[in-house]
């Protein structure tokens, strides 16, 4: 299927949404490149579904522009925007066969029967459902239903594919399989894809770029690698990573940053800062900062611990393999200076030395 060669980029220009005077999205500008897989990530209520529905045309825009390719689309009906959508609860038509579900859009558009049949078959083959065309959705498993929903989306050869938390109804194993499938599907068909989720694992694994949203504002829009290694602010730092990054109020003076008198690292800044330390970067060592292990969870491949410094500051840390440490013990930790993140204590924005 090469029909999606005409994928188009999405440009959001000062896009706004207000519900009865409450701004949900106060003004959002972003460029999603053609063929790119963008994941919109954020906590519930951050406006991510609203944003997706506005792109789809299911919700009216309160202000600003949406461009798909070079067309301004915010005032044209959903079906003419050249996009298709996959929904969280599949939204398949229960009374229609798989083939009719996939082909409904073509039927509405008045595509002749022969062409319809061949396009349905082609779309079903892409998601490996070629043999299931006569089944009803109720006879399929959750994963298969979601694949029907994907086939229904791609059969229209859209310029843009939208996904509204499509994996959250699946169990953990199936979600993993579908993630791989979606990823390879995207590589094959290359449509510009926008994927909304609150699951950071989905975001990290699927995305070319992640758009992190909170209270309707973009917190960071970058590659998964940069989001993880160079979080733009404390919100992103705390949102991405499991267990989440330690964010510690610290004081910088005389070229060093310290927490309650314990020196953490050298720094050029001074005054109050928030220091971010990823749990997996903290090492348990022979000597270093003495801490008390308050809580410990063994997850097989690694352990996570909550430790308490002598001054009462708690830190989360993750050890690679289950080290023989028991709860209640005193151990020493070392925090590598080059792995620290510094944020402005007042605004939460990252302080960059480079």
């Amino acid at each position, binding site marked *: 299927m090469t029909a999606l060669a005409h994928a188009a980029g999405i440009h959001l220009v000062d896009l706004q949404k207000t519900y009865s005077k409450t701004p949900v999205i106060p003004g959002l500008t972003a460029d999603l490149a053609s063929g790119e897989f963008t994941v919109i990530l954020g906590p519930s209520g951050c406006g991510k579904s609203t944003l997706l529905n506005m792109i789809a045309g*299911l919700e009216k825009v309160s202000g600003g522009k949406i461009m798909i390719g070079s067309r301004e689309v915010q005032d044209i009906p959903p079906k003419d925007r050249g996009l298709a959508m996959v929904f969280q609860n599949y*939204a398949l038509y*229960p009374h229609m066969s798989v083939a009719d579900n996939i082909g409904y859009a073509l039927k509405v558009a008045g595509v002749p029967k022969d062409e319809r049949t061949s396009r349905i078959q082609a779309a079903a083959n892409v998601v490996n459902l070629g043999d299931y065309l006569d089944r009803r959705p109720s006879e399929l498993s959750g994963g298969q239903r979601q694949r029907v929903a994907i086939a*229904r989306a791609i059969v229209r050869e859209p310029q843009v594919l939208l996904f*509204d938390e499509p994996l959250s109804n699946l169990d953990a194993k199936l979600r993993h399989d579908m993630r791989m499938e979606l990823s390879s599907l995207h590589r094959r068909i290359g449509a510009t894809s926008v994927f909304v989720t609150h699951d950071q694992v989905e975001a990290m694994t699927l995305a070319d770029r992640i758009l992190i949203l909170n209270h309707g504002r973009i917190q960071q829009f970058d590659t998964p690698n940069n989001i993880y290694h160079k979080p733009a602010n404390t919100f992103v730092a705390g949102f991405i990573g499991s267990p989440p990054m330690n964010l510690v109020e610290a004081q910088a003076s005389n070229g060093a940053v310290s927490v309650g008198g314990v020196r953490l690292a050298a720094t050029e800044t001074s005054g109050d800062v928030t220091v971010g330390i990823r749990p997996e970067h903290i090492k348990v060592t022979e000597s270093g900062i003495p801490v008390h292990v308050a809580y410990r969870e063994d997850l097989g491949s690694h352990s996570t611990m909550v430790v308490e410094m002598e001054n009462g500051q708690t830190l989360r840390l993750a050890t690679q393999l289950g080290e023989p440490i028991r709860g209640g013990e005193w151990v020493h930790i070392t925090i590598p200076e080059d792995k620290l993140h510094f944020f402005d204590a007042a605004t939460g924005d990252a302080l960059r030395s480079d």
Partner: protein
Amino acid sequence: MIEDTRSINTTATLLLLAGCAFVLAPLVFVVITATQSYGDFLRNNFSLVPGTHFFENLQQVWELTLLPRQTFNSFVVAFVSAFGRCFLAFTTAYAVVFFAPRYSIFIYAAVLASIMLPLDLMVIPAYQVAANVAMPINAVANLGGAWETLFGAPLDLQLNLLNTYAGAAIPLMAQGTGTLIMVQYFKTLPVDLAKAATLDGASPLRFMVDILLPLSKGPLLSLFIYLFIGGWVAYMWPLVSISSPDMQTAVVGLTALDSGMGEDEIPNFPLQMAGAIMVTAIPLVLIALTQRLIVRGLVLSEK
């Protein structure tokens, strides 16, 4: 019941049997009386011994009374009113649930009002309107003599629906229970269904016909049967709005079966009971035929 002990079960069974006997006894009486001849009945009065004249009585009902014609009238009136009510319930519920207009509160108010003010309470105004459907238009046009000043004479349009099927069926439609039922059903459907159809390019009308209507088959069918029976047994309104016997409905016609004879004669009860059985049989057959469809319809609309 959560408890499952033998004594409770036995008591419950006995209670149910007593209830059954209480409900079924009059029916048994009807059936037995219908099998006796008028002569036997005059000799023995009511008796619990079945006779052998059931088919004779039915034949008499068929040949000598207006009941066959009136049964057809009932069928038309019940069908039209039930169909109309289903149609109104479906379309109103669609508007309320999927478009949530700001005035939906007024629709609810109207629906509730129609339930709390049944037709039986409004027989007189309903009769006046049925006698001249244009009456409200006339009244508005003639407010303060407006029409007379403009055209020289008061507006006096006439359209009489008394003694017609339309006059009997349409007022029966003005009742909103079906709307509430369909609203509840639509609320159980996934909201994304409408979004998916919108993105598939289906217009609201097309979504209603292609997606919503097939999904509502079960509830609509049950509703239709329920309302059909309601229309079939309606008594007050047909009695008031229809005066000519050959336009009358069967339930009203049944009561007229005893008036064919002289004042002092004992009514032909066996004939009446045979007629009652004939009139009851049609909704019974309807339920028997569609029962499986209804159940399957309810199961198919899986969530």
